[in-house]
């Protein structure tokens, strides 16, 4: 189960995720993130309420970052402990823009 909400705050599009980023939810996650980066120049993903992520979720995130390259600023914010652990094990912190807090 994953809940995704999107809203515009100041000049950022904020995508808030809640729940599990796993093989069941990865396709939808990728779709949501892609559509956000295609339509908005600045996208912040709030990961505070993501309590589980597997490699399928990582793939969705990577694909979205790829889609954002060159035309959208995509930041991953407020990582939960679970997400941080999996990001660290996979070296995501070297290639994604990660922020401790949401920009707005």
């Amino acid at each position, binding site marked *: 189960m994953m809940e995704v909400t999107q809203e515009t705050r100041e000049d950022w599009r904020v995508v808030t995720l809640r729940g599990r980023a796993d093989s*069941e939810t990865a396709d939808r996650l990728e779709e949501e993130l892609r559509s956000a980066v295609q339509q908005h120049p600045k996208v912040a993903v709030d990961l505070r309420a993501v309590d589980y992520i*597997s490699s399928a979720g990582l793939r969705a995130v990577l694909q979205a970052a790829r889609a954002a390259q060159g035309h959208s600023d995509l930041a991953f914010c407020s990582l939960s402990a679970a997400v941080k652990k999996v990001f660290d094990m996979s*070296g995501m912190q070297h290639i994604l823009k990660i922020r401790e807090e949401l920009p707005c």
Partner: protein
Amino acid sequence: MPSRTVQHTGRRCGRGHGTLPGGRAVWHNRSIPTGVEIALNGTVGELERLAAEVAEFCRGNGLDEGVEFDLNLVLEELFINTIRHGGCGDQADAARIRMRAAGDTVEVEYRDRGIPFNPLDAPEPNISAPFEERQPGGLGIHLVRQIMSDVRYRRSEGENQLTMARRTESK
């Protein structure tokens, strides 16, 4: 611990066309005498049931959220490989899992009837590579190897058989 019953059909993935009975059952014990036993059909939807079983196992054995998270992650990665790459998609009884808490360790046994695949032979992804060179594949098995210790593989009786352990002290 509750035990569950599953019929051992002897069928190999990629052959046959069994419907999914949604059944689960007890499996003849071999290396692990007690603990939970789970049989999964080859559909992604089984992940939810797997997560519930892992949660129950952890609660019953006083294991913390960190252990539960790691077990879920490792089992998802292995199971998704089984159904996406092992030829076990939509097969009944595609994978079987046993877990047992023993001292400061959870012993895990994972078996499937898919094509032969030794995760210990899988190439390690380069997790320091720059973005442009990142490959989407290989991360799942990488996570399994990062989290679990004493990972052993053998191919026997037409099955991939993996045993491994997760230390339960904080890590």
